[in-house]
């Protein structure tokens, strides 16, 4: 069934940025432009006053299935994704069991297909059980459908193992993703180390714990020639080192999360467990550096690190509560805030959410070019709304943005030519 999206502002970063109609048929983009010839019976979606964008691509989510379905299932995670305009998501392997073999990868892909919402691309583990010791069967994982490899949450501490992983990955042209954290330096820490951790008596994780691993990984990428993607960088030092690595032509890419460019460690005050994530919220200087990195292209991608946790887990004390917040349903307005601030042009913002992430993992996504998969997000850029976690599609409610007044909302999400999400008229 054909869909005719009319009268919207179409942005396809690097290719098109103008008022136009978009015609979709048989799951693909058929035409973009004015005065299209529309087949009879096409569904019309009026996008007047709205943005028509390539669906967003999130390189970093945790969907918790298998093993922790009470936090999030592939179904609920995918529902949260499309509600936030994300048509493709890449899920980290720290499930139980860990996605370190073909069977788990196939299971995830099956579940995602059954859910029929977003495209779900599994990320395989670097090492067996993400234990940092022996390489996982990266060739098998790749063949089964993994789009990258990572031991996210459990950084590969042994530099030799990391070197071998990068070398081995070259054979499959797959990006190696690292959560940069020196576990010894960060041991026991639960927030950024600084004046506030000192005052609150909370064990700190110094920025250096991230920086030393970024430095190591960049050195190993240089040694091996591997494609290195740095997950959720959060420090002044990381941004500086990525910038420097790129200037030398290394194949290094990086992502930043909306919370790391929006709020600081101040939010931890009151022992707010919704402000506990890893990497932790940092200082204003770090926030500034992340914004500069996004602005000058040092940071390629905005990713959410969507990390659902159950209410009872976040009700534990600050040191016992798990790290992580949900992010899929708030990422768009927080990114658009950077446009209002003048950090990013609207087109660059869409690039960081859609086109660039697809490129980093080599996915045929993130574009509205004729012939591309019809993954589209239609956005009411100026619409104001208040974050009410009770209304999230995610199973979990752990967000520090509850009650925030946001601007910019997804009104329709199309995946593979099917409308998978629409705000009901009552909400508009």
């Amino acid at each position, binding site marked *: 069934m054909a869909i005719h999206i009319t009268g919207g502002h179409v942005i396809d970063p690097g290719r098109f940025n103008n008022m136009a109609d978009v015609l979709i048929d048989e799951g693909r983009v058929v035409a973009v432009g004015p005065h299209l010839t529309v087949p009879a019976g096409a569904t019309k979606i009026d996008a007047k006053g709205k943005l028509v964008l390539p669906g967003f691509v999130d390189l970093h989510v945790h969907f918790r299935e298998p093993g922790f379905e009470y936090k999030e299932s592939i179904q609920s995670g995918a529902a949260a994704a499309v509600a936030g305009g994300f048509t493709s998501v890449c899920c980290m392997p720290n499930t139980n069991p860990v996605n370190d073999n073909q069977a788990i990868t196939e299971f995830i892909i099956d579940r995602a297909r059954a859910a029929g919402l977003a495209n779900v691309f599994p990320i395989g583990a670097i090492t067996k059980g993400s234990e940092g010791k022996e390489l996982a069967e990266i060739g098998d994982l790749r063949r089964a459908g993994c789009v990258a490899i990572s031991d996210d949450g459990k950084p590969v501490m042994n530099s030799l193992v990391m070197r071998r992983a990068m070398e081995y990955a070259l054979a499959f042209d797959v990006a190696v993703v690292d959560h940069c954290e020196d576990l010894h330096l960060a041991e026991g820490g639960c927030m950024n180390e600084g004046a506030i951790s000192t005052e*609150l008596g909370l064990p700190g994780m110094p920025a250096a714990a991230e920086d030393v691993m970024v430095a190591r990984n960049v050195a190993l990428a240089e040694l091996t020639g591997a494609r290195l993607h740095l997950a959720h960088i959060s420090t002044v030092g990381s941004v500086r080192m990525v910038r420097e690595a790129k200037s030398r032509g290394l194949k290094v890419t990086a992502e930043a999360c909306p919370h790391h460019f929006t709020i600081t460690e101040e939010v931890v005050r009151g022992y707010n467990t919704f402000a506990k994530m890893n990497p932790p919220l940092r200082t204003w200087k770090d926030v500034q550096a992340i914004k500069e990195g996004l602005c000058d292209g040092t940071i390629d991608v905005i990713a959410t690190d969507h990390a659902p946790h159950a209410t009872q887990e976040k009700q534990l004390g600050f040191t016992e509560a798990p790290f992580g917040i949900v992010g899929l349903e708030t990422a768009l307005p927080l990114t658009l805030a950077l446009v209002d601030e003048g950090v990013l042009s609207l087109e660059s913002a869409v690039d960081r959410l859609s086109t660039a992430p697809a490129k980093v993992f080599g996915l045929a996504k993130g574009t509205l070019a004729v012939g591309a998969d019809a993954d589209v997000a239609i956005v009411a850029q100026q619409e104001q709304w208040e974050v009410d976690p009770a209304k999230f599609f995610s199973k979990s409610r752990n967000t520090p943005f509850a009650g925030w007044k946001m601007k910019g909302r997804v009104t329709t999400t199309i995946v593979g030519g099917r409308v998978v999400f629409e705000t009901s008229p009552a909400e508009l």
Partner: protein
Amino acid sequence: MSLKRKDLLSLAPLSVDEIGLMLETADSFKEVTGREIKKVPALRGRTVVNLFFEPSTRTRTSFELAAKRLSADVINFSPSSSSIVKGETLLDTARNIEAMQADIIVLRHPSPGAAETLARGVKSSVINAGDGWHEHPTQGLLDLYTIRERGLSFEGLRVAIVGDVAHSRVARSNIHALVKLGAEVRLVGPPTMMPFGVEKLGVRVYYNFDEALRGVQVIMMLRLQLERQGKALFPTIREYARLYGLTSERVRMADPGAIVMHPGPINRGVEIAPEVADSLSSVILDQVANGVAVRMGILYLLSGAN
């Protein structure tokens, strides 16, 4: 004057007047503890629950004695620290206790912020009896009380706090209160034991104990957690004792008449030499005695019995 707070969670947010009120209230109870019949009916019919998730003999006993001398009913509840791991939230435990009509919950917990989290969730008053590395406000108050009892005034008072400040809730409470009251606070210890950015709290950091002692009127020693040797904070107990142990010679470098304090329990021969702990300048046992009076005052003020 009465205290307009439901809880005592930390000294950081208290005003000078509030601290003054707490010390004055302790005065009247100090008098009670000197009587032959050491009991007043101020909290008759009230229930105080000591909820201790960490082993503690002296703080728990001190609170228990304080509550009993005020004629409150006291219940000691010491869940094993494994129940924290088991996943019953602190709030669930506390709500159970509250359902039994506890008026005041005294909480000791290994997690910084536990008392604040608890106080937000229950109607009962909450007293923080130590939360991780964060604060131990009644210890801070009893230290202030003991200093004041020696006739020292806080304005311009030179105090050295010596030892593992980074991991010390006692140090944090004292720093906040002493700086607020106008004292000059010197922190002494190896850089590995100084928390990041601590100067922002209005203190000066010294790595050399002898230098820090010049002109000091109060020497406050912290207990060395001996098991931290494995955490690369200091090489050996021997070297720590040489660099930061309080000996009689070092006491002589301070102001004549300087007092020596320690929150206990002391490691004799490590952070403090036995002859110093037992000397006339030591007020360590006064601290323990004053603890009961100070805690009586806090229980009384929070109960709203006045």
